[in-house]
């Protein structure tokens, strides 16, 4: 299909607040993004032409922010509302091979929903992981270097060469990925074996065991983003939508000449290419 026919659902509720820049990213690449309030999918309090169905879209995007204030646990309330009314639609969406992505709070929501890491199927009944408070104890808004270590499974990053390093900022208080402690070793091994680790925080030389501030939250193995078994569901803590252009890079003046492309743009292009080729 053509890129302009790709419909992107930018899902929001109270407290989502990175939706504009996420919308802009898809729009700039020629796709057709739309802001959709969760209530429009639930069919609650909506007028005649406001109701929407997940089925209408090719990409579902959970933007960053503080959905419902992140009270209880980051992403928990948004996830619970989706589970209550839309889990069937969402399951079908994923199983159809359509793309689901989340950055920051979006990633937290996806983990709470059980669609990531999705160790044993599309959507687990209970969360299989948690994004825990940063080791520093602080909210961390800072640039991070991400090494793309995915070997080709993730449809959101497949246009990025393996091993390449990108400067993409993070901004979160709860970004430390933790898997169930009793079987953690085996689960991490599976994540790597099944090619589901997508980005790892690294230092300037590309070492993925670098510590704070390179790893802003203390995630084991410096994991910054993961994908589902099929590679179409993807979440990451940092914000690629914030570095769509080079002029928003923290070190903007260093490479003044040349491309205006920022290090995050390729994430959006990859998934659009995937949809163009697949549907």
């Amino acid at each position, binding site marked *: 299909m053509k890129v302009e026919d790709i419909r992107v659902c930018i899902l929001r509720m*109270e*407290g*989502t*607040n*990175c939706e*504009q*820049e996420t919308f*802009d990213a898809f729009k700039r690449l020629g796709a057709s993004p739309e802001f959709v*309030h969760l*209530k429009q999918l639930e069919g609650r*309090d*909506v*007028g005649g032409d*406001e109701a929407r169905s997940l089925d209408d879209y090719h990409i579902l995007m959970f933007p*960053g*922010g*503080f959905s*419902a*204030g*992140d*009270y209880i646990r980051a992403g928990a309330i948004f996830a619970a509302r989706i589970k209550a009314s839309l889990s069937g639609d969402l399951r079908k969406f994923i199983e159809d091979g359509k793309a689901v992505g989340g950055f920051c709070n979006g990633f937290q929501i996806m983990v709470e929903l059980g669609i990531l890491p999705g160790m044993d199927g599309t959507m687990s009944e209970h969360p299989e992981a948690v994004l825990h408070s940063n080791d520093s104890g*602080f*909210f*961390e*808004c*800072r*640039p991070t*270097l991400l090494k793309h270590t995915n070997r080709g499974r993730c449809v959101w990053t497949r246009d990025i060469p393996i091993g390449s390093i990108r*400067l993409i*900022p993070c*901004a979160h208080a709860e970004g430390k990925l933790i898997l169930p402690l009793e079987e953690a070793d085996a689960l991490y091994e599976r994540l790597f074996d099944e090619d589901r680790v997508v980005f790892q925080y690294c230092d*300037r030389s590309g070492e993925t065991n670098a510590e704070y*501030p*390179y790893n802003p939250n203390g995630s084991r193995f410096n994991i910054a983003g993961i994908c589902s078994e099929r590679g179409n569901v993807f979440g990451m803590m940092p*914000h690629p*939508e*914030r*570095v*769509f252009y080079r*002029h*928003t890079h*923290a*070190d*903007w*003046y260093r490479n*003044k000449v040349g491309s205006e492309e920022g290090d995050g743009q390729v994430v959006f292009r990859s998934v659009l290419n995937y949809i163009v080729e697949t549907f």
Partner: protein
Amino acid sequence: MSISHLFEEMGLSAPVMRVKLMGASDQEMEGISREMAIGLSLDEMKRVQEYFAKEGRDPRDIELEALGQAWSEHCCYKSSKYIMKQNFMNRSFPQALITSEDAGVVEFDDDHAYVVGLESHNHPSAIGPYGGSATGVGGIIRDVVCMGAQPIAVIDPLFFGSLDAREEEIPEGINHPKYIFSGVVAGIRDYGNRIGIPTVAGSVNFHRGYTGNPLVNVGAVGIAKKKHIIRSRVGGPGEIYILAGGRTGRDGIHGVTFASADLSSDSEEKDRGSVQLGDPIVKEPIIHSCLEANEMGLLRGMKDLGGGGLSCVSGEMALDGGCGAIIHLDRIPLKEEGLKPWEIWVSESQERMMVSVLPRDVDAVMHIFKKWDVEAVIIGEVVPEKHVKALWEGEEILNMDLDFFTAGPEYCRVTLPREVSREILEADIPLPDRGELEASLLVLMEDPNICSREMVFRTYDHEVRARTVVKPYVGDPFSPGPSDAAVLKPLEDSWKGIAITTDVNPGMCEIDPYRGTLSALDESIRNLVSVGARPHSLTDCLNFGNPERPHVMWEFKEVVAGLSEACIAFDTPVTGGNVSFYNETKGEGIFPTPTIGMVGLIEDIDNRIPSQFQHPGDSIILIGRLTGEVGGSEYLKQKTGKIQGKCPEIRLSETADIIRFMGECSNENILSSANDASEGGIAVALAECCFGEPATGCQIDLLSGKIRSDFLLFGESQNIMVLSCPPETAETVLELAESHGLMASTVGKVTSNTFEIAIDGNTAISQSTGKLKQTWDTALEDQLR
């Protein structure tokens, strides 16, 4: 004296008391004001008595409460208005579109305007640092939204007592500066981050003068299409008032009367109810829904409920539209049962917006609020007669003439100059040898007013919305240096940028309020031109002690004179602001603190100028003359423990020359970097220039001109800039500077690793940049421990 006989239950369906003001004695009237905690003076009570005598009835409690609020210093600026009018009347600037409302509206380009507001949230933050600062952010964001603008940035200049204050220095009932600091920062962090508006600029100042009265000033900038700018007034009779957002509760009762009095030792207990509670997750959908309804053309007027609550907003919106209003007070959604009508009327609960809507658009507006799960109710209507009336189940419980109600008193208060500007005897400060100069520089680098605030800014999301193109810390991602101002690119399809800075040097204002104000403006301007922007407008937040004290009123007068003079000299209008008096605890007032928030424009963000040196080999150019003036400097404070001396001279015409010169540099893109010198003088400014890139250094040779080495290096002469450029363009830069009448000279070059300053060819400082950077980086964290 018991005055209970002056209050009488009226026997209405709601609990309303009649207050027997007719025939009350002076003493009784003072007693009433005290008993009700409405803060009205005897003279003011007499005016009220006179009004109701003409009406032929006694007032009800709700009416006196409303007047106490409307006539508070915070709401009607009764002490400041007179001096403001004298200085700012009859001056107009074409770029300022609206300057009379909650936030100023200024032209951005042909189709867009930017909106700026800056205000104080001092008293609440002293009592409840976390809630106080959070609601400060919330309030200023609402001020921007209610003009129809999308907020794009938050700025927050903060002032605290010394972090090393000893217990005995802290007035009873006041918390330690460390505690207040962490609470305030956490409040801004949690609120700003949750509503998704980046906190991009600000300042953190520590001085003993703020131990009893921390200052929390908060500003916001927004952007709007000009056609979507909406006024805070009704369109005409027949319109419907809809109240949207948070519920009304007992939080924030008497907030403005509390903000209009000194703090006392039992403030923490007694005034806790005056601190409003914010909820960012109610706020965020309010922003969306109000802007959506406005952009659809469904709103005639919009105003936020801040200090002054429902009472002030329903009256002022109506009167500004030449009308009156009737409010059904029993329809207001409440947080808890049992609020008295007067409590509902004056509550300053957060997250509330009032919109005025044509009857035919009510359903559409209510639907938008419903869609966003924002609670909204129809609470009243606009009427032709200029009265505000409140009804409870149809019974009138309040009825006042709006001209009377909103025309608060105005005072021409007594001013009395206090001594300023004492010369320092150079001999009192021993002349340092070279080792001492290096040691002094290190001590300055870790001074809480100079060291890095990066740890604070990392906890604020400063790039949400992905429009922050110059961040507070720039350069190497893992070891950045400070930027002079933040720059945002607000529009998707325009390269035009908006630069924001906030400045004031409280020490300078303490020794000389007039010159201190000029110095704050001068520094703001140099910060803006350093990033390549052209200064465009300013807003101010003027914080003072008790205006009933003649010295304080004199400080205020001096500050306003400085502001007025500078905004003419720089062609930058003051587009709004606020005055906060009564920042006193037990007779101890703060330093006069005129916080300046300044906005600049940059035609093409590609012409942004970095703050730090870029390339070894580049020439370093000094603009301005090092005068060795150390009055008010951090260095003098280090040496003598006091803020003293004569405030350095400011030459406004020179600042104006710098604006023109830097404008050309930015247009021509000929500079590698630009930075201004402020606290810590030229030595600290040069060090900061070396902090953005790893392994940068500089080699400088200054001419002493018979000035002592320490005064030369650390004196805070004004109008100083440090530039760098490729050696082959140095001549062009120098000529350009000279053509604008500026003193300019090449003083050295960018090198690697070592920070070296010589004076008249003799090494004065030679230090590894890494050591300076590390000292500067870790100082604040160490002092917070």
